[in-house]
């Protein structure tokens, strides 16, 4: 029965797809696949470079427990403890400031924001996310160091990182708050719960899993920033726990310092240090992202 339908007496309405169209379609398919592969190449290449060159020093315990203060620039040994401490401290202080502010802004935009101010805030968050890190660093320099006359320090770096972290926190939190169903809010209002308590006890816990994920991603992003470090803090080869005073290293700063002062020939001490620090930074970022996933799972609302 179907065969008779497929062979009509009249000229078929649907012509065969012409060769030209077929070729065009084929070329487009190939190009589109190719562009994806092109994007994967540098990612794999970069990660391969970091892992292969960086793995030489990472396994030794002194890499994690010593600094470069007691070794010569061309001497094998020492470690990046000073830089790991700096990176984590600066990141932590940055998060302590940026997360509450970012979440308040997100809550404002989702729960309260109406009219011109909300529009302006959304717009400014967009602009802030486009501010180059070096401009954020210069702003903190102009404010903290020139105007207030305070010394360069890890804390100044944290402040610059806050500017870079806030828009990311706002955007991800906002997205998560918006997908909290209105039914939950209204059920809470119906029980006579005030709005602020509804937000704190109902909306935030529901969205928390996604928000934590976004915060961790933002934190990982700002920890890799280099420009604010250059402008706002000096490099120190020694461990410095005081974020408010003195020079403080960070992993990107170690890389930049070795690049500027040491040999970069393959196999040299400087080369190993650069890639060792790079791998350490990538590992820290990976661990933070992993923690983000675990935390998100832990606090995710239970589904039945």
């Amino acid at each position, binding site marked *: 029965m179907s065969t008779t339908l497929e062979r009509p007496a009249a000229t078929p309405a649907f012509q065969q797809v012409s060769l030209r169209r077929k070729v065009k379609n084929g070329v487009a398919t190939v190009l*589109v696949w190719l562009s994806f592969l092109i994007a994967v190449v540098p990612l794999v290449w970069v990660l391969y470079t970091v892992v292969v060159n960086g793995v030489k020093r990472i396994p030794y315990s002194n890499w994690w427990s010593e600094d470069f203060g007691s070794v010569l620039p061309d001497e094998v040994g020492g470690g990046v403890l000073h830089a790991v401490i700096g990176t984590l401290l600066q990141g932590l202080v940055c998060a302590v400031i940026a997360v509450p502010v970012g979440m308040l*802004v997100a809550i404002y935009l989702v729960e309260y924001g109406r009219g011109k*101010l909300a529009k302006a805030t959304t717009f400014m968050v967009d602009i802030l996310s486009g501010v180059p890190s070096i401009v954020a660093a210069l702003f903190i320099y102009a404010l903290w160091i*020139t105007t207030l006359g305070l010394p360069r320090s890890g804390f100044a770096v944290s402040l610059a990182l806050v500017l870079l972290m806030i828009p990311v926190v706002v955007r991800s939190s906002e997205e998560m708050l918006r997908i909290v169903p209105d039914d939950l809010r209204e059920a809470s209002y119906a029980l006579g719960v005030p709005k602020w308590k509804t937000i704190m006890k109902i909306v935030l816990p529901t969205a928390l899993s996604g928000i934590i994920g976004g915060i961790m991603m933002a934190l990982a992003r700002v920890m890799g920033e280099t420009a604010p470090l*250059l402008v706002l803090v000096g490099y120190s080869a020694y461990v410095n726990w005081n974020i408010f005073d003195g020079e403080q290293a960070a992993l990107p700063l170690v890389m930049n310092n070795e690049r500027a002062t040491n040999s970069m020939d393959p196999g040299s001490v400087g080369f190993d240090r650069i890639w060792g620090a790079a791998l350490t930074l990538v590992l820290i970022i990976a661990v933070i992202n992993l923690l983000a996933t675990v935390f998100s799972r832990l606090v995710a609302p239970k589904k039945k």
Partner: protein
Amino acid sequence: MSEPPWTRTPTGDTGGRSSSAQAFPEDPISDNPASPAPSVPPESTKPKKVRAGDRIFQNLTTGAGIAIVALIGLIGLFLVIQAIPALQSDKVNFLFNHGWSTNDPDNMAFGIADLAEVTVATSVVALIIAMPISLGIALFLTQYAPAKLARPFAYIVDLLAAVPSIIFGLWGILVFAPAIEPFSQWVNDTFSWFPLFAPGNVQPNVRGTIFTAGIVLAVMILPIITSLSREVFERTPTAHIEGALALGATRWEVIRTTVLPFGKAGYVGASMLGLGRALGETIALAVILLIPQGRNFDWSVFDGGATFASKIAANYSEFNNPTSAGAYIAAGLVLFVLTFLVNFAARAIIAKKGD
């Protein structure tokens, strides 16, 4: 369609529904006043009173919103204040001079022309490479990739954005540049008659050039352009796609007639966001670009040089003197205004599409 009254949304204005509910006169219990009746009067007696907790919380969040708006203004303000003294002691035209000499605070002569040209050149090279590729990736992820793999593939592309830029820079100059050196050298030798590919000002080095920097920068802005374009392409109305398919269009024709026209504005906006990122990229370019001795940038991709951002990053040691620092802050101010305008335009294009 005798919908039971309890399907009303809790927020919904019950006024509209009550008339339909009156169609069932022998069902007064489910009608309006039924269950809310006991609770409504006490509420309506004191509806205007705002609780202290609510007021505090609202003020707190609104304050945070205002702070963000003020922050952008403050950034501009502080940069301007710090830049003015340096600009006043500038001996040459700030916008059109090619030199940069700020070592002597009493005798500064600096202009941003060279920085602006190098910034534009690297960004344009990066855009020329990144725009078609990210268009391809966005189409791949939304139209071609198997549905199950689309998300992991998108995640892979997003991973590119998670790599710190100093690692891209070091990879660019230590690994990538040597690897493509034969190619760069060949292009440089073969097309040297064409001004764009003329022998650069860092000869015989063809590694630390705008060519290398532009390619690395392209990789760095790929994920930005891709993720936004992808979002827009995903929203192509299914009816359009199915309509094209019903007319016998091939897959490419479907894309050309429905996805691309629909997503064009979003793609352009996304590319401009990528441009904004490229203009402000700092350390990767500071690591890759060689600083030429003597000769200025002359519109060859095999030139070295410094962009706004990489100039500031490379000379942080001069910041000990406030007047000299002011010169760099002035350059930073120009960069801020530039990225502000580009981002503004990008968001305007995207927002227009959204309406």
